[in-house]
Structure formats: structure tokens, C-alpha cells
């Protein structure tokens, strides 16, 4: 059987030379059915053009580094199989809605600030000493927030969110899901400290339910659900007399 090839059209952008991004084509040998887009990029970097820049590490869908637009959809490139696109070319671009540093590398500092702003740590009025051993928590209590704790910060949901694309001040899907992860944790007492950010001007109420964040999430986190549930909960706190309990 003659060796198959597949065409990768990847974004190239070097701020030292280029006004704006452009696409460059590379033909890549497609020799194994289990090859993914990331393998194709690695082939380019190793054997064709060492200057192509992108982030990657674990190649098993858990480190969250290798998110890119693959034929217009946000994907983890370690989990986008060439066989699903061949024989047509694959266009690989940096994630939408983010500033581009170089080639396929986006600037995600904005998310890092948002992550910090929702205080993603256990907040307690009174810490229990280590000697008192663990908080008791049942698997059912973990189930309440488990889904939202599975976020790998891959930024696909931000790339899919037109609200974020139009207004980068929006807190966005992953940060809200992580805020909910802590708010629903039976060990946490920090809801009131997180409310100003979650319920603030650029918080959950900016979301007009496109729902695409949950569609593209590679980990089944469902950030849209987190946002809508938070809307309901904050409304209940506002409306109901006992709503402002801790």
C-alpha cells in the first residue's frame, strides 16, 4: 500500500515579522490509524520546520496544553484523530477569542487572573487542625461537585464562547464551573466571598446560554450547567427570606 499523506494547514505568526497570522501547508505522512493532529504537528516540528510553535505535554487528554482550533472547532489536538478528517486537509489554528503570542500559542493570562479571582481554594471560618484528621465527606457529597472538579483548564470552552469573544471581561465558563466546584463542596464555607465576582457585572449574568462551552468540553464538565445553576441559586438567595444563609 502506498504511504498516505495528509495536509495540515497551520497558522504561522511571528510578531517580530508578521502583521497578522497566515496559514502554511505541510504534507505529513499518515502511517498509523491511531495518529492524532498533535502527532502530525510533532512530525512537522521534528522533520520539516522546527520553527512551528505550539504547546503540548501529556498526549492523554489530561494536561490541557494542546487545545487548538481544528477545522474551526476547539479541540484537544492529542484527541483529534487524523482518520476522522482524511483525505481532506486539516486547518489548525490557535484557539479563538484569545490574543495570539506566536503561531498556535495563545495568551491565557486572562484566564489565570480569572481563576484566581474566584478564590479556588477551600475557605473556612475555622480551620480544623491536622490532628483532627479529615473532614467527613461521603461519595454522594463528592458527586454534587465532582463534574465541576474535572476541569483541566484547556480553554476550549472560552474559545467556543461568543460572549467571551465579544466581551473578554466576562468571567467565562471554566472559572464559573470551578467556583461552583468549591461552592458545592461540603467542606467549603466561602460562597459569600466568591459571590461578588460570580454575581458581579461581568459574572454569570453575562451568559446568554449559547451552550457551546458544554458541547466542546473534552471532560464532560458542562460549564453551561454550572452557570445556569448558579443563576438560579443566586436568585433564590435574593428572593427567599432564608436565602442569605451561609
Amino acid at each position: 500500500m502506498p504511504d498516505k499523506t495528509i495536509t495540515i494547514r497551520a497558522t504561522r505568526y511571528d510578531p517580530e515579522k508578521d502583521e497578522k497570522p497566515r496559514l502554511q501547508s505541510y504534507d505529513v505522512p499518515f502511517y498509523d490509524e491511531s495518529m492524532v493532529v498533535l502527532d502530525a504537528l510533532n512530525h512537522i516540528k521534528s522533520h520539516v520546520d522546527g520553527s512551528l510553535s505550539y504547546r503540548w505535554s501529556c498526549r492523554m487528554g489530561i494536561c490541557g496544553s494542546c487545545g487548538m482550533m481544528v477545522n474551526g472547532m476547539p479541540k484537544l489536538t492529542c484527541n483529534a484523530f487524523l482518520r476522522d478528517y482524511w483525505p481532506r486537509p486539516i486547518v489548525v489554528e490557535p484557539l479563538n477569542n484569545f490574543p495570539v503570542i506566536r503561531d498556535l500559542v495563545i495568551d491565557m493570562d486572562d484566564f489565570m487572573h480569572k481563576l484566581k479571582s474566584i478564590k479556588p481554594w477551600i475557605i473556612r471560618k475555622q480551620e480544623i487542625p491536622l490532628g483532627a484528621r479529615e473532614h467527613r465527606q461521603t461519595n454522594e457529597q463528592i458527586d454534587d461537585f465532582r463534574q465541576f472538579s474535572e476541569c483541566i483548564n484547556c480553554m476550549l470552552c472560552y474559545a467556543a464562547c461568543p460572549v467571551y469573544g465579544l466581551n473578554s471581561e466576562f468571567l467565562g465558563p471554566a472559572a464559573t464551573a470551578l467556583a461552583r466546584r468549591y461552592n458545592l463542596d461540603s467542606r467549603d464555607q466561602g460562597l459569600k466571598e466568591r459571590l461578588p465576582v460570580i454575581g458581579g457585572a461581568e459574572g454569570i449574568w453575562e451568559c446568554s446560554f449559547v451552550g457551546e462551552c458544554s458541547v466542546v468540553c473534552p471532560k464532560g464538565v458542562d460549564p453551561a450547567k454550572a452557570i445556569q445553576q448558579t443563576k438560579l441559586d443566586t436568585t433564590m438567595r435574593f428572593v427567599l427570606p432564608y436565602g442569605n444563609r451561609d
Partner: protein
Amino acid sequence: MDFESYDVLVVGGGLAGLRAAIAAVEANPRVKVGMVSKVYPMRSHTVSAEGGAAAVMSADDSYDTHAFDTIKGSDYLADQDVVEAFTREAPVEIIQMEHWGCPWSRNPDGTIAVRPFGGMTTWRTCFAADKTGFHMLHTVFQTSLKYPQITRHDEAFVTKLLVEDSRCVGVVALDIRTGRFDAITARSVILATGGLGRVYAFTTNGNICTGDGMALAYRAGVGLKDMEMVQFHPTGLPFTGILITEAVRGEGGYLLNSEGERFLKRYVPNKMELGPRDIISRAMVTEFEEGRGFEGPHGKYMHLDVRHLGEKVIDRKLPFMRELGREFVGIDIVTDPIPVRPVQHYMMGGVDADISGETPILGLYAAGECANVGLNGGNRLGSNSLSECLVFGAAAGRAAAHYASSAKPVTANPVDAMLWDEARRVEAEYLEKKGGVERIGPIREEMQLEMDAGAGVFRTKESLSRLARNLGGLRERFEKVKVDDSSRTFNTEITAALELDFMLEVASSITFSALAREESRGAHARRDFPERNDAKFLKHTLAFHTNTLAPRLEYRDVKITTFKPQARTY
């Protein structure tokens, strides 16, 4: 060129590094802590750890049995005082992680649950489903965000340790985004850069595991300890090297050869699937050689079968395995056996450090996989490494903070010159070099294949000598390397070159340490010396950097306290 100064500087943002940073701050809230990592901390390879973290959690377990299991697992190459301290600290650290929000899986009464693991005589592995490393890393990273004393330099690549009068005073780091070289100075420096799996072709390790910290310390004159001890995990997915957690066997999965037989009965009859990794990996390779493996497009493999566990147990305890099978192999582990074969997984060896992470260089500490504090010896038991990151990360953080509070401040004068020299070196060797002909990628790929062939599950004098020669050839080719990318902005070809430089260093330390250890112990299996030789080799290997490819080797006695070396059978 810039100049930042800290009391404690942590290199590496994985579990050990983050734990060290928090420990330093909690030991002394006035310390200024810097953290340099070549990736955003939540990308660190801790994220891929699956099975769990070992600690004595219940009344019917004891520190002594955990210590004995670890020491026996290490084939008596572990330092026993270190192991004993580790077993006492591990439960405290597990509880600390719980208080920080780690979603440990629970018993019905709400206490932290444990599962069985290879080489452990009792159930003591705490877990968060089968994404333990992911949950621990995100928990400790998110917790670290609350400390104003910690300043992070994300995506900065450390190229050199600044050592002045045999004291470490900081690092030179390349800011990947801008291409600028910075001197980041500190009264104390903690290396927590993780493993070196990428020197092998078939590895579970991520692209970032290139042994940077080991090479940095090695070049600064610190010995690398027991580098011949490389762990091969029995169950990696062919082609991708994706790890199938040992918890699959812990939960009751079977390893079957092509005859449908649980072949481990011939190798570890009392432990079966819960034997230690080194022995099971050797058993698999032996079965392959004797013609009882499955043949696949990516080489021979075995079946790992969990079908008898049922969907409910699999979804509760091994959901990520099901996801990986579905996404990356196209199988459902509820109805199909998983193809697996041994894969490079972990480095027992590393930067020579003591029980509190101190290296022989004043002010330089090391923790986690990049360090060898003497815990793992010849073979690490599964689930001891996450606990190791916590216990020894915290220890190094506290020790570094303590040292920093009395150490002299770092002066700008010599640092400026050192920064200038280092920046010039990297620019001359890569960015501005004329006449290079060799690509980075092919040299790296050849090195990886050579390492698989020469320093794999089984080694011989011949395989290692050939490997040593070929590494020499690769080093010569690397001198003629050519870098396509002339940009300063996010130049990942420069970092790939720096990483390959580091990997060639640590690969040769592995090869020569392995060549000199003429016995079989733990993960180091010499076909030409199949027996353990306590009289001659109950010792740590220490490899020191020289101007040639071959390191200078020294040996140091293993610390034995309670457990006298015996035959290691399971």
C-alpha cells in the same frame, strides 16, 4: 536583562514544587518565594498520575509494614531512615491535602478510602477515582494561589544554576514568551523538575519530562544517585504509551498472555497481579520472548482484563481508564480486554539529596522525582511517588525557608557576569550559530530508540556499551545542531535544543551507572549478572559530571536500620 530576588526559589511547578512553595511560606510567612516553571503549573506531569498516594491510614496498618514493603520493593537499596520518616509523614500530608480540598474517594462513613496496590501487603493507597494526580495537582495549585508571598514565573526555562563559592544563589532563566534571559536570584533554590522519561521512546511521560533539574544539578557538580534504576511500568497502551493505572490490577484486573493464562503465577505466585512493577515487567518481556504474547502493529502485548469487575465498579473506580480506552484505542474496557506492554514510567534515580532535600551544594535542595532522597532504591512501589512529592516537597520547602532566613543576601555583582555569560552561551550555541546541519528531532528520536534498546527492562554489558558509544556519536552530532527558528518569541525550538542537551547528559549518566552495576537489583536487570550481589553493590551509585561523556562514579553505603537484606520473593 532583569534581576529578581527571592528568599526561596522553586524550580518546577508540579506537586513537589507547589508543596515546597507552600511549606516555605507556612514555615515562615515573611519569606518571599519565587516559582519558575517551563509550563503553567497545572500542566505539570503530576497531572497524569492515576492510581493513588500511599499512606498508613487505618488502625490495622502500621508504619513498619509500609516501611518494610517499601524497602523490600526497593530491593534493599532504599535508605531505611528516610523510608521510616516518610511513612510517618505521609498520612499527615494526605490529611493536609484533604483539608485543601482534594476530592479523595471515601468510605461509606465519610473517611478517606484506600485501595490495594502492587507490592503493598495491605490496602493503603488513597485515591481520587483514577485521576489522583490530576486532582492533587489542581488542588495544591489552586490552594497555592491564595498566598501573596508566592510569585510565579510561568513558562520560563531554567538553563543554568548560579553557583558562587559552592553556594547556589539562583538560576538563569529564559523567558519563553519574550526570549529574554533573566537572573532570578535567591538565598536558596529547590529543584522540583520531575522525571526524564523522554530520554526513552516508549514512555508514559509527557513531552516536558526531560530531566532538566537533574542535568542542571549534574552540571553544577552534584552527583546523580542510582541513575541505573529506571522503572518500567507493566501496563502502557502500545503506540501512545498512555498509562493504564496499576489500580486496574488493584481493583482486581487480570494480566493474560496470548494463551489466556494468568502467567504471573510462574513469577509472583503469592502476589499475582499485585506484584511489584519491576518483576511483572520482566515477566511480561520473558513471556514475549518465549512466544506467549499477542502480536500487534506496535509490537507484542498482553491483555489486561477487567471485564469480570462489571460496569458499576469500573465507572466508580476506573472511569478515566474507560474514557482513555474509548477515546484513544476505540475499545470499551467493560467488554474488551486492554492491550498493554511494559513502558518507561519513572526514574528512581536523581539528584543526590538527603532526608530534608539538601544537596551537597549549599542552598540547593531537591524534591520529587528529580531528586533521589533514598526512598525508592532499586524499584519504587506504585503510589509511593505522589506521597513522596508531598512529604519531601514539604521537607525541602521548610529546610530551604529555614536556611534562607539566616543566609547572606545575594549580591548583584557576580550574578550579572554569570547571567551575561550564560545568555551568550545559549545565543552562540543555538540562535546565532552558523553552519549547523543536524536537526533536533532526528537526534532525539535516535537517542530514544537507543535508550529503549540498550537500557530497557533487561540490560547486558554489550547493550550498554553499544549505547554508550552511540550516545557519544549523538553528542557529536548535537554539536552541529541547526535551529530553524530565529525568533525570540515563544521559540520552542530553542527549548527543545536545551532539553535535548539535558537529556543527552542524563542518558549518559544512566548508561554508565548501569554499566558499572554488575548485578541485578530492583529495576536494574543485567542478563550477564542475574543475581543480586550485596557484598559488592549494596551501595548507591553516584555519577559526577566530567568533561567527557563518561561520568566519574563513586559509591556510598546504603543506610540500613531495622530491615536486614533478604531474598526478595513475592
